[in-house]
């Protein structure tokens, strides 16, 4: 239950951070806002590390595949491309399309990692897309009548 709640909270923070970042980007520029994004992020991480003090052995670095270190680069590309998309589309619509890409890539990664095809995840995922598509349809027909 703990992991379910923090996963939902993680999603809520994504939306708030995306709005704040876009606002800053409109004021000072894309790369500049990303600079402050990662500057404050790095600072917060260092504070968290100082508080919780992970113990680390130097040998641990060698046991991790090289690609695992590249998450930060992917994060920058997400921040930059999100800032491009956010002013052009409604929050709900962006959430829908990013959802589809995220979910099915995630299911694909699980397929590869577990070497099985998780049918419950695919069926559940398709239901989620159906629900979102319905809400999107409600949105677009509401706009037509205004």
């Amino acid at each position, binding site marked *: 239950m703990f*992991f379910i709640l923090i*996963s*939902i909270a*993680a*999603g*809520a*923070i*994504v939306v*708030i*951070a*995306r709005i*704040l970042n876009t606002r*800053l980007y409109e*004021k000072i520029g894309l*790369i*500049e806002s990303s*600079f402050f*994004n*990662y*500057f404050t*992020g*790095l600072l917060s*991480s260092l504070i*968290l*590390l100082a508080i*919780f*003090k*992970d113990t*680390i052995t130097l040998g641990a670095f060698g046991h*991790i*595949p090289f690609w*695992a270190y*590249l*998450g*930060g680069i*992917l994060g*920058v590309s997400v921040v930059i*491309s999100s800032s491009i998309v956010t002013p052009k*589309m409604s929050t*709900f619509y962006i959430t829908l*399309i990013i*959802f589809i*890409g*995220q979910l099915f*890539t*995630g299911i*694909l*990664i*699980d397929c590869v*990692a*577990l070497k099985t095809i*998780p049918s419950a995840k695919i069926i*559940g*995922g398709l239901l989620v897309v*159906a*629900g*979102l598509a*319905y*809400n999107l349809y*409600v949105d677009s027909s509401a706009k037509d009548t205004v």
Partner: protein
Amino acid sequence: MYNVLSLLIGAIIAIMLAFNGELSKGLGNYFSLVIIHLVGFTTILVLMFYKKIKISFKNGLPLYLYSAGAISVFTVMFNNFSYAALGVSIPIALGLLGQIITSLAFDHYGFLGMPKIHFNKKKLIGLLIIIIGISIMTFL
């Protein structure tokens, strides 16, 4: 064009979750948090050098606008926690439920100066289907 870019953003996020999760498993939650942000910060510095951008701190902007990075740290941390326990796609599904509810609340109330888009009760049907779908993914 923006649709394709949005789809790509989603795919990159999923791949990033697996990368960060593996790093967190190997290096510990907080140490990996520093590495992830250090790599990101370095990437930005390289981009700035390449595009010859200089940073100047503009006065008059509300400080909360600079907080996106500070709160995003908790998204990364929570995702890394969940990755070790639940894998990739379940935290994604649950995280997206959090995103949908938050997005709808922001649209409805116009938080943080977003244009108000009133909540249409018909959307409860879609939201219910979404929650059923996520439940099947998570509990079956």
